C-alpha cells in the first residue's frame, strides 16, 4: 500500500515537472528564438561592468601616448606610470572607466579611459581611448586608438 502511494506521488511530481517545462517553452514568444534571452542578456551586461579581467601583460603600451610639448615634459617615471595605466585601462577597464596614474615626485598625474572597443577583420581588438595629463595644474587631453598585439601588449595606431 505504502509502495503504491509512493509510486503515485513520484508520478505526480514527474508530471508536474514535465508540464512546467512544456509551459515555459510554449510561453516564450517566437521573436526570442535565436536571441540569448532576457536572463542571459542581464547576466552578460552585468558582467560588462567591472569586466572579465584578463591577465595583464607585463609589456607596456608601445609608443608614448602623448607626444608634443606635453609629452616632452613627462619624465621617465611619468611615462612608465602612464604606460602602466594605459595597459591596465586598455586590457581590463570597461568603456568609460578611467585608470589614473600619479607621480608624487614630479607632481604630474593623468588618466586613460577606453571609450570604444572594436574588432578588426582578423579578430584582433582595438580600443579608442581618451587621455588626460595634468602638469603644474594644467590639464591636457588627447584621443587615440591602440590595438592589441598577439603578445598582449597594446600598440598605438592613431
Amino acid at each position, binding site marked *: 500500500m505504502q509502495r503504491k502511494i509512493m509510486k503515485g506521488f513520484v508520478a505526480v*511530481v514527474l508530471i508536474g515537472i514535465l508540464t512546467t517545462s512544456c509551459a515555459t517553452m510554449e510561453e516564450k514568444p517566437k521573436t526570442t528564438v535565436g536571441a540569448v534571452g532576457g536572463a*542571459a542578456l542581464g547576466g*552578460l551586461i552585468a558582467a560588462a561592468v567591472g569586466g572579465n579581467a*584578463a591577465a595583464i601583460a607585463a609589456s607596456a603600451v608601445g609608443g608614448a601616448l602623448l607626444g608634443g610639448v606635453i609629452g616632452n615634459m613627462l619624465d621617465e617615471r611619468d611615462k612608465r606610470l602612464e604606460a602602466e595605466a594605459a595597459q591596465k585601462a586598455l586590457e581590463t577597464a570597461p568603456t568609460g572607466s578611467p585608470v589614473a596614474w600619479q607621480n608624487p615626485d614630479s607632481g604630474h598625474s593623468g588618466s586613460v579611459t577606453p571609450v570604444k572597443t572594436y*574588432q578588426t577583420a582578423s579578430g584582433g581588438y582595438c580600443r579608442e581611448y581618451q587621455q588626460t595629463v595634468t602638469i603644474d595644474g594644467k590639464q591636457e587631453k588627447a584621443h587615440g586608438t591602440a590595438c592589441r598585439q598577439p603578445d598582449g601588449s597594446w600598440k598605438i595606431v592613431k
Partner: protein
Amino acid sequence: MKSVRYGVFIALVVVASLAELAIAQNPAKPDWGEGFRTHDENGDGKIDRGEFQNWMVDVFFHRDTNHKGYLVFADIQNSMSLEGFKVRDSNGDGRLTLEEFLNSLFQDFEAADVNKSGSLSMEEIGNYIKAARK
C-alpha cells in the same frame, strides 16, 4: 529497497526545488545601469542600435578571457546554457564569433523593444530581463 530509491529521488526533487526557489527569490542584482549610461552616447536616455552594438562589442571583449577574439562556452557559462551556446555556434566549432554573438543579441534588442521605437529605454531592458526570470 524500491521505496528507499523513491525516497532518495523525492528528496533530490525537493532539494532541487528549494534551491531553485532560493535563486528565484534572491536574484543577483545586476548593475547594468552604469553600462547603459556609459553607452548612451548621445545622452537621450535610450540605447539605439549603434549604441547597443558598441555596448555588446564591449561585453564580448570583456567576456573573451585572454582576448582570443572569440568566445568559448567557459567564457559565458554563467549567462548561457550549453544548449544555447551550441545553437548560436552555427558551424559547431565550439567558438562564438562576434558576428554570431551580435546576431543573437540583436534579436534580444528587437524582442525588448516593445514599442518598436528602434531604441531601448532602461525600463524596456529591465522589463525584458525581469520577464525572463519569472
